[in-house]
Structure formats: structure tokens, C-alpha cells
């Protein structure tokens, strides 16, 4: 269907409500945060309007640079793990009977209803020495003695992947359902084993969806600030943890705001790069 581009101001009126919401709930708070990031901090937890770069300058240290790098690396790892796990899972799910699909989707949706705190404590119990899964392995004779798996990087990664996995499946599901099942059948008649058909047809045909999902999970994982504290050591703390720490416990709003702004900028930059790379790949 071909549509006329909007002509008059009235044609844009359906956009007014979302535009207003976006302004009130995103542009204004974000603008405030940018402003605060340039304010002068006062001892005792207050700040005064000013235009200083102190907050950004303080941020540009090896320590915070390292945390930023770790946060990005962690988010990328979570995004990749989620997509690598969710893509075959969702593909197989779309090929199952309707009833099976519903059971799985309800189970995944119920994970979404869990708060980060509950997920964190549940996994820290599961990874503990006294009550954790290693006890099962010991009972099965696969391990000598029970040990604690947390705090560790792997524990943080597991928790975050667990948290983001349902989102990943829900984003991939519609695209995979819409994918014509005869495409894989055609690939099989042309000599591809089911596995090769998956990698040579399903994955490339869904390239754009996969990239979009990676970006979504990446951003989702960047915002996680409880799981790294519950399941990791201080060196596994992400920038979000430090921002929370500065904003709430150190009462240093301007510095927290500066870190948040910086994180947003870096994230936007990475997303833009991904999109540009995606376009290039498409043209090639």
C-alpha cells in the first residue's frame, strides 16, 4: 500500500500524544540530568548551579575508564549469550505445537514478572556452597565436594542472561513465526542438512532482527545494577552500580549525572556504529 506523506499540520496530530509523553518523561528528565552533570557539588550532599567540567574530568580516570570498559564488555557478552541461546530455542519453539508454545511463553513471561532482587537472591542461593547446585552434582557423584560458585564473573553473567533471556525470546518470536517454513524445507531439498539450513537460511534471512535484538539486550544489560552486586565481586561492578552508589550513597548527584550522560553517549555511539555496519553489510 502506498501512502501520501503527511501534508498539513493536522496530519501530524496523531503524533502529538506520544510526542508529549516523550517530552515529559524523557526529554525533560534527561535535559535536567545533563544540566546537573555540569553543576558544582557542595560538601554535604547538595549542588549549586554552575557550568564546570569537574565531574567529567574526574570521570576520565583509569579507574572509571576500566569500569566503563568492563560494563560495555559485560553487556556485549550478555547480548551475545542471549541471542546465541535464544535464536535456536525460539526457532524450535515456533515449530512446535501451539499448546507447547503457549506453555513455554507463559513460563518465560512469568520470569519477566520477577524483580532483579528476587532473581539475584535466587541465583546466589543456587550458586552457594551450602544449598547450591553443586550439592546435586556431588550427590550424582560428578563432583568431589560442594563449593561456592558465587561471587564470580560467570555468576553475574548467568544471572543477567537469565534475566534478559525472556525479552530476547519475545523479540525474536514474531520474526521467526513470520519466517516462511518452506524456506528451510527448500534449503533441505537443495542439499543442506537441517543444521546448515538453519545457518545458511534462517540466520541470514533474520539478520536485521538479530542485530536489533543484540542492541536491545545490550542496552537492557547495561542498566542492570543489582545483579553485579549480588553475584559478583567489586571488580565485577558495572558503571550502573557506581552511578547508583554515587547518586544514592555518596549523594554526589552531579558526578552520577555526568557518568550517566557519558554512558548514554557511548551507548548511542556503539548502536550507531552497529547500524552503520549493518547498512554496509546490506549494500555489499
Amino acid at each position, binding site marked *: 500500500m502506498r501512502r501520501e506523506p503527511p501534508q498539513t499540520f493536522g496530519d501530524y496530530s496523531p503524533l502529538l500524544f506520544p510526542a508529549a509523553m516523550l517530552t515529559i518523561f524523557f526529554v525533560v528528565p534527561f535535559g535536567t540530568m545533563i544540566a546537573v552533570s555540569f553543576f558544582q557539588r557542595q560538601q554535604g550532599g547538595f549542588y549549586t548551579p554552575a557550568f564546570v567540567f569537574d565531574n567529567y574530568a574526574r570521570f576520565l580516570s583509569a579507574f572509571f575508564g576500566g569500569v566503563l570498559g568492563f560494563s560495555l564488555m559485560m553487556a556485549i557478552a550478555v547480548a551475545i549469550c542471549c541471542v546465541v541461546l535464544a535464536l535456536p530455542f525460539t526457532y524450535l519453539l515456533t515449530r512446535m505445537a501451539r499448546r507447547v508454545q503457549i506453555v513455554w511463553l507463559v513460563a518465560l513471561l512469568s520470569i519477566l514478572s520477577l524483580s532483579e532482587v528476587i532473581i539475584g537472591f535466587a541465583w546466589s542461593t543456587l550458586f552457594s556452597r551450602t544449598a547450591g547446585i553443586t550439592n546435586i552434582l556431588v550427590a550424582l557423584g560428578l563432583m568431589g565436594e560442594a563449593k561456592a560458585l558465587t561471587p564470580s564473573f560467570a555468576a553475574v553473567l548467568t544471572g543477567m542472561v537469565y534475566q534478559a533471556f525472556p525479552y530476547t525470546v519475545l523479540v525474536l518470536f514474531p520474526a521467526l513465526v513470520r519466517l*516462511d517454513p*518452506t*524456506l528451510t*524445507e*527448500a*534449503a*533441505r*531439498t*537443495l*542439499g*543442506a*542438512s*537441517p543444521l*546448515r*539450513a538453519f545457518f*545458511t*537460511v534462517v540466520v*541470514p*534471512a533474520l*539478520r536485521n532482527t538479530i542485530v536489533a535484538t543484540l542492541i536491545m539486550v545490550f542496552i537492557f544489560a547495561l542498566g542492570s545494577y543489582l545483579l553485579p552486586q549480588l553475584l559478583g565481586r567489586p571488580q565485577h561492578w558495572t558503571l550502573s552500580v557506581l552511578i547508583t552508589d554515587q547518586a544514592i550513597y555518596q549523594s554526589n548527584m552531579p558526578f552520577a549525572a555526568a557518568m550517566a550522560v557519558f554512558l548514554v553517549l557511548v551507548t548511542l555511539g556503539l548502536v550507531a556504529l552497529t547500524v552503520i555496519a549493518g547498512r554496509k553489510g546490506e549494500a555489499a
Partner: protein
Amino acid sequence: MSGLALQNVVKEFGAFKAVNDVDLTVPHGTFVCMLGPSGCGKTTLLRMIAGLDLPTSGAIRLDGEDITHVPTHKRNLGMVFQSLALFPHLTVGENIAYPLRIRGAPKEDQKKRVEDLLSMIHLTGYADRPVSKLSGGQRQRVAIARALAISPKLFLLDEPLSALDAKLREAMQVELRQLQQKLGITTIVVTHDQREAMTMADTVVVMSGGEIRQAASPIEIYRRPADSFVADFIGQTNLIEAESDTLNHVTVLGQPVPGLQLPPGAAKATISIRPEDVHLTAPGGGALTGTVTFVRDLGGTIETFVEVAGRQIVAVSTPRARPEVTVGQEVGVALTPDVCVVLRK
């Protein structure tokens, strides 16, 4: 034996038998059209030949070897789907080269083969186009070329031409037939268009309710249909009840037809006579007597509807051979015994 053989193939979906005990031999190089009403199991049968579905029981043999349990990708076949199933992320050339790439053919060979195939389907120079930028007929050809890229042992097509308009469809039927004759590949086409089947096939397989009703050459199917379903499904026909007395004198619609014979021992049978074989004459002289109820002049042919003892009989003739009849006139309907087909019950 070289060729394809289906032996007692059955496919059940739950309690429902989609394909019921199908036996069929297709000699190497034959062009087979499977024809039948919607839901009669044609696609199911084709998918089993391709290995996309597993038969509930029975065997499928290719060149004497049992391939019933050989996975699809090891069968070396080419299949064109009704939706065509061209890969949207690949260009025309990459689509055609896909089966070669999967088999690890060298890049130069792939390129050469793609060029040969493109010239075969009259699309030279289209290799770098995205498939989304092709017309329906061009896509059709690309799907055919992709299926033929490895010179398959079996070429399967599921209603390949149904999405095309009538003109293009007829042109593609001729092209497909010529291509198949040139390559000599055993080909099975599913269709529900009987004209298409008559145009292309060496063997027409008429199916209904999951069973094969008749498998024979198009002309034999047309001239000697095995039963009333086939007679009615292929072309137009008049199905008339005939009765025989103990002395084997046959009467049709209460009037004697000298020379017509029913199988020995049969008191009743249905006979099929094609409209173009019905000749209208003057009443009497061994012909059935009836009344003209309607004349449809289509320019190229004329259809005359004659009512004989409450039954409608249609006669088709060309304008030149046209008998001078008008509605309400009493005419004779000559049933020449050698064009009447006595159908088995």
C-alpha cells in the same frame, strides 16, 4: 529398475488417511502430472517423495534403492514449492548457486553453471538482482533454475504455475515441458488444472481421496477413463446409465442402442461419451430421440443441449459441421458404440 517407484505408500495424520495405499512406477525420464481435487493428497505424496514427510507405511524406491528413510538433503532432488521459497537475502545468482555452494563446488564452476542456467531460463544478466525485484514469471524461472542447478535425479514441482496469469501460465507450461525433454529428468508436477496436465505430461495420475484412480497417458485418460470420477474430472463428458437384458441387448435411457455391449454379466453400467463424440442426426435409425433445449453458440464451437427421457446430453460441434437445429426441435442422438466408454462400477 531405473526410475521412481512408490509401493503401498500410506500417510496418516492421526486417524485421517491423507494418502491411502498408493502404488506407482515412474520410469526414468518420464513427465508425470498428479491431478486431483483440492485435499486429495497430492502435496502430501510429493512431500513424501521429497523426504519432507515420512510415510506411515510403504516404501519409496529410486533407481532400485530404497530411499524411504534417506533424509531430504541426501536425495539429490530439485523441488519447486508453490510459494517458490526463493531466499530473500540472496541475489538471483546466489539463489541459483545455493545447492552448488552447499556441495562445496569451486567458485568458478558455480559462476559458470549459474550463467548457463540463467541463459536457459532467458534471464541472462540478472545474476546480481535481488529476488524481490523480479516479476512473478521471472521468480518462477529462478526457482526452476535453482532446483535444476545440480542436475537432480528427480524434479518435483508443487503447483508451480498457479500464481501466474492464464497467458503466462500456458507459455510456462510449454517451456517447462521443452526443458524437461531437453534434460531428460524424471519430473513430477502437482496441479489441479487438467489442461496443464494434458499439455505437459507423459503420464497423468488422477487422484481422489488419497487414492490413485488412474495413471495413464493423457490421451488414454481422456479416451478411456477408468471410472466415472476420472471421466468427469478430465474434460467434459456425458455420463449415462445403460441397461442390458439377458440377450445382451443394450438400452440407454429406455431406447435400444444396437451394437453397444456391456461387460458380460453386467445388467447395468454407466457409459461416458464426450460431447464432441455425440452426433446429432435425424430422429430414428438407431439413434436416441430427444428434444433440443438450448443452443450455446460460442463462435468457435457450438454446444447443443438435448433432453432425452429427462436427461441432459451435451453435443459439441464446430460451426461448419453444425447440424441445423433449433430449440424445441426433435433430433436423433447417435451414440456410436466405439466412442462410448463403459465405466466399471
